[in-house]
């Protein structure tokens, strides 16, 4: 069976359209985020208290909301997981700097108030209390990890391929991160620790995809000496198209299972991955190579005029690949 037999789509012809589409999605997401005052931060980053309660019988959210109404600040009370689980999540905002054991007061208050409201027997399924120190710490670490892994990957690609390719891969990666953030915003997800982990995974995944194509480009440079860079890249994208689509499809299936069956805790993570996989595949085909070509435009022209000799100084093809 074969999805694409001798695929020969002219992807590069669509590069400006593709870039325009991506810019629109990213800008729409950014606009939405700005209008809402940024992506909502989960309790991991913003700090605050989350208590999940499990009742022994169905309890309307409004009853719980009324019970905790006396706690000041913007509270969130919502059903947690499936309706049949009778679980309710209560989230309280950060109550100020840590002093002694002040941080847990919110959680204690919630339990006391719900107890007093007489809504039936309940148990505490989980409690998360994050103070501002830890929240700020995690924010810093999250940004640091994302930036550091992008720099690390850029250096690796620049060493193994060429600098313009590294830029192409990184632009594609940033693209995927931004598109994912935009979709998180569209669907009202908040940025939690798990979502950041998913975003970092997408970074790896997106670069993975891009490298497969670049590898093929590097290989084709040797057999297609008279062709323009644009043509070589386009051919390479087509040659690897079957793999790109199948891999995206199977990974998507696996993560879909996670999204459907993984439970409430991993929902944000799985959703982020799903968006990232689609965006990563799209950016691999349309964005990464387009950027690489646009950036090496002058070199590509020179190459078309003077033949491959002019390119030889750029980056030598790996001997090992040749020998195999």
């Amino acid at each position, binding site marked *: 069976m074969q999805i694409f037999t001798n695929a020969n789509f002219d992807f590069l012809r669509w590069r400006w359209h593709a870039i325009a589409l991506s810019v629109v999605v990213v800008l729409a997401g950014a606009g939405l985020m700005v209008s809402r005052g940024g992506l909502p931060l989960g309790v991991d980053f913003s700090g605050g208290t989350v208590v999940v309660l499990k009742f022994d019988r169905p309890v309307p959210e409004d009853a719980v909301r009324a019970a905790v109404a006396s706690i000041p600040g913007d509270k969130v009370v919502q059903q947690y997981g499936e309706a049949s689980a009778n679980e309710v999540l209560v989230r309280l905002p950060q109550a100020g700097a840590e002093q002694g054991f002040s941080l847990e007061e919110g959680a204690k208050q919630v339990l006391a108030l719900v107890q007093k409201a007489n809504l039936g027997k309940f148990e505490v399924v989980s409690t998360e209390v994050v103070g501002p120190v830890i929240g700020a710490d995690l924010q810093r670490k999250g940004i640091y990890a994302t930036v550091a892994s992008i720099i690390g990957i850029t250096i690796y690609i620049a060493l193994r391929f060429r600098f313009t390719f590294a830029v192409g891969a990184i632009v594609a990666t940033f693209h995927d991160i931004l598109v994912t953030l935009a979709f998180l915003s569209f669907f009202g997800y908040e940025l939690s620790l798990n979502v950041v982990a998913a975003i970092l995974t997408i*970074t790896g995944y997106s670069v993975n995809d891009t490298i*497969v194509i670049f590898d093929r480009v590097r290989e084709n440079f040797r057999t297609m000496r008279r062709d323009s860079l644009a043509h070589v890249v386009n051919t390479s994208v087509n040659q690897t198209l079957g793999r790109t689509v199948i891999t995206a499809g199977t990974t998507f*299936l696996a993560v*879909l*299972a996670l999204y459907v069956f993984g439970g409430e805790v991993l929902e944000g993570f799985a959703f982020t991955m799903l968006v990232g996989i689609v965006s990563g595949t799209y950016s691999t085909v349309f964005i990464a190579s387009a950027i690489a070509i646009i950036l090496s435009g002058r070199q590509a022209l020179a190459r078309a005029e003077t033949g491959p000799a002019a390119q030889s100084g750029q980056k030598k093809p790996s001997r090992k690949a040749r020998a195999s």
Partner: protein
Amino acid sequence: MTKNLRWKALTILAVLVLAVVAFWPPAEKVRLGLDLKGGVHLVLRVQTDDALKVETESAAERVREELARRNIVVQSIAPDGPTRFRVAGVPGGQDAEFRQIADEQTSAAFNRQSGAGGAYAFELKPNIAVQLRDEAVKQALQTIERRVNELGVAEPIVAPHGMAGDQILVQLPGVSDVNRAKEIIRSTALLELKLVEQGPAPTREALLAATGGNVPAGMEVVSGVDERGVTGEAGATVYYLVRHVAAITGRDLRNARQTLDENNRPAVGFSLNQEGARKFGRVTGENVGRLLAIILDGRVQSAPRIDSRITDEGRITGTFTPEEAADLSLVLRSGALPASLTYLEERTVGPTLGADSVRAGVLASLTGLGLVAIFMLVYYKLAGVNAILSVAMNLIILLGFMAYVDAVMTLPGVAGFILTIGMGVDSNVLIFERIKEEMAGGKSARAAVAAGFDRVFLTILDTHVASLIAAGFLFQFGTGPIRGFATTLFFGLLSNVFTAVFVSRTLFEAYLGKRQQAALSI
């Protein structure tokens, strides 16, 4: 089967056996994280300023005592922040003598600055401050560790945390009574026995009436619950004027245990070590008939009258429940915390949520694996079996790795497993597509397989290194669950290079080896 192939098969078998031995039986060997097992995760900060304050105050106290002994009267000696104290109004004529005393008492740990009119400031040396902070954190770690061990929690973690060096991570898997655990960990448990000079009195003012409304030098006011009916109201607060220097502290204890007082109410009995017993014997012997305040964390628990000289035994009475008495004796046994704690983070996962998560994770993994397997069989036919075998082996090796390095399995770790399935399939797809391409170019099945694996090897290496970089930084960044994810991702990538390239190729060769002009079902 050629000789070469036999060696390859044996290698694969050996790896498989090693992996299975490492994680079998999985219920014992694969450690579950808090999010799957249930339990509590706490991050505490040691208020290291407390330790500096103690050092600064005791230096100021030494200077004060020495000055009093030599009849040098200064205007004031007062602390100014945790690392500094000031002396004002040193008489001009006694300045040299003061300097000499100050040097004797403080020069080891403090820098001295002099100002106008006999004013001096003493600042704790920065290196000493750093050392004191480190010691405070280390002592707090040890104390908490002892307490956690006494709680009888299986596999607890008490470890330094974060970059600042003053945070402590406590993880208690499977603890059901979270509040009790928290109370025990954080109670400072600073026990001091101090002689009562005045009181008890119902108000501060009444207490200080005899001394003209001022707290005399070397004394302090502490409060506690009224046990003598001074106020005529049960449970009201009363005040005591006590000596600043404690006769006995928690450090002099040898042991503490739950016991009963003369009215059969729960109490905590303690015994003193040799040094403590000597001191206690002297103090009680010299002060028969006076009150001795038993102060816990700055609050008077009780203030019994000293009836006779006591050496090595004592009892703390008060209004304890049996459990409170048991917990108090536990924290007294494990020693006082050198500084108070601030609570930075708590994550508690109930056992039901943990069990639900395990179920969800297993279901998601199996479904994911099933879906991918069906797709591979339909699309690649017989070669799909090859892919499934190598992915399955990848998962087995990954489990083995996790168990071998004692890594913790978390819910995001399960997600890492599912992504490992995705990556394993990706490598196989990459190879299969290449083989198809080579066959379409006119190569025989055997040559196409060889060319496919050779050409793709470098690609797989590049993609895996890039992903390993991302996983590595994720590990750096990670707290608990995320770290579990990064670990599975990292080891999954490593073992995938082996299974996708080596195992899968061996399977192909074994299949093709039997027939000369084999066709490939791909």
